[in-house]
């Protein structure tokens, strides 16, 4: 597997870990004291992005061309004047939650997913952003609502590497939306999902995917850890199958899929909505190798007593057979064997928001 560094966004800054023998060691930190919601590494330009969520000073974008040694702040996107979240509430930028690059043949294309539900697009490496109006003006959009956040927010952006006109976004709470015509039109892709918190659990819109991922090798296989379970689609999101178990693989936030084997995925379960803590005070990772028909539990190297960690939606990532995740209690774990055993790489980090191999 290619050797990569680990970029850990936390409530109190960005921490970059590099390989050190079999494990990792802290190479660099930045933005100390500032919440770093997420990071993005643009392989086309070598730029590293940090999405900052200042408690006092608002949402900021920070960009580095030297792997985080130095940073420049660039202007954050703005909601156009007069845009409304609903009939009563004006739209203001409340969170920049996720960033994604366009494909290799779209130089300068960057997407941002935000609260209150706007997708922003740049075609000049972030020098300026525009609201993607076709999604913002989707007829269902004013009916979207907050899930985990006060207002609806985009947490997942998937650009199909085979066809950059196809983009999927995951929205809490609304569901999955897909464009196949470069953003001219968007369609809800939520058939088969279940929203137990709605009067009509099968509602086309109002679903709560916590995060949506796709295998790099097969963008027709999509996975999501949803508020109401785990779902997989093998037809590009047209239909979702519920692969939740009655046991451990159920509620959670994060999910990862193997880059070459789309049938293999991992989740880091938690006790359901009401509690949001580790199951039975023990940390566990569940893995499937058959599209979710069966799940195996893996605990080796993970705390099995008095553990209350939860793994947020952007805090699990994969690099070949290597996986890493971080937790709300500031633990960072890495597995070199497909999630069967784990080794702690740091126990005293701030609460972890995101973990990415770059």
């Amino acid at each position, binding site marked *: 597997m290619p050797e990569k560094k680990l970029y850990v966004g936390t409530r109190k800054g960005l921490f970059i870990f590099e390989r050190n023998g079999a494990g990792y060691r802290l190479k660099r930190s930045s933005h100390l004291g500032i919440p770093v919601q997420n990071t993005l590494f643009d392989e086309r330009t070598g730029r590293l992005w940090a999405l900052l969520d200042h*408690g*006092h*000073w608002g949402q900021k974008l920070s960009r580095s061309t030297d792997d985080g040694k130095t940073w420049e702040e660039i202007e954050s996107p*703005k909601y156009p004047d007069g845009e409304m979240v609903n009939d009563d509430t004006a*739209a*203001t930028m409340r969170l920049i939650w996720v960033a994604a690059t366009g494909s290799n043949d779209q130089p300068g294309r960057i997407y941002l997913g935000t609260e209150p539900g706007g997708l922003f697009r740049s075609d000049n490496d972030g020098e300026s952003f525009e609201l993607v109006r076709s999604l913002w003006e989707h007829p269902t959009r004013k009916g979207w609502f907050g899930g985990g956040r006060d207002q609806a927010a985009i947490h997942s952006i998937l650009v199909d590497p085979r066809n950059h006109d196809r983009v999927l976004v995951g929205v809490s709470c609304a569901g999955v939306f897909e464009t196949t015509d470069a953003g001219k039109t968007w369609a809800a892709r939520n058939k088969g999902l279940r929203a137990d918190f709605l009067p009509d659990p099968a509602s086309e819109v109002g679903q709560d995917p916590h995060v949506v991922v796709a295998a790099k090798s097969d963008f027709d296989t999509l996975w999501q850890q949803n508020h109401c379970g785990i779902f997989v689609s093998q037809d590009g999101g047209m239909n979702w199958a519920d692969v939740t178990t009655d046991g451990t693989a159920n509620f959670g936030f994060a999910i990862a899929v193997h880059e070459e084997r789309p049938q293999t995925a991992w989740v880091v379960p938690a006790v359901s909505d009401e509690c949001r803590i580790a199951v039975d005070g023990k940390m566990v990772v569940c893995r499937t190798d058959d599209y979710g028909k069966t799940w195996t539990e893996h605990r080796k190297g993970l705390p099995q007593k008095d553990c209350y960690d939860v793994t947020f939606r952007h805090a699990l990532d994969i690099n070949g057979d290597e996986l890493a995740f971080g937790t709300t209690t500031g633990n960072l774990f890495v597995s070199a064997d497909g999630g069967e055993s784990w080794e702690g790489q740091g126990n005293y980090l701030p609460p972890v928001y995101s973990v990415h191999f770059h």
Partner: protein
Amino acid sequence: MARVQFTRHLSRYFPDLEQNVEVEGNTVAQIVSGLNDRFPGLAAYIVDDQGALRQHVNIFIGNELIRDRKRLGDEVQADDSVYVLQALSGG
């Protein structure tokens, strides 16, 4: 011209920010705009993308909190002291 003082926390992001900045303006909005001309990007730390005062930022004119957090229409006199401070929040 009004004299503006800042929370020291802003100097982390604007190292050149002086502690007593004199700015022309008849309203708080004009003061913020004038500050942004002198220190590009500063306004985005004080107000959100719609121009409203950020939730956890306070602006005082003398000892009085401004009333119009949405449009920053409070009037400022030439000899006023204006304070841009962060609210006590967070953790």
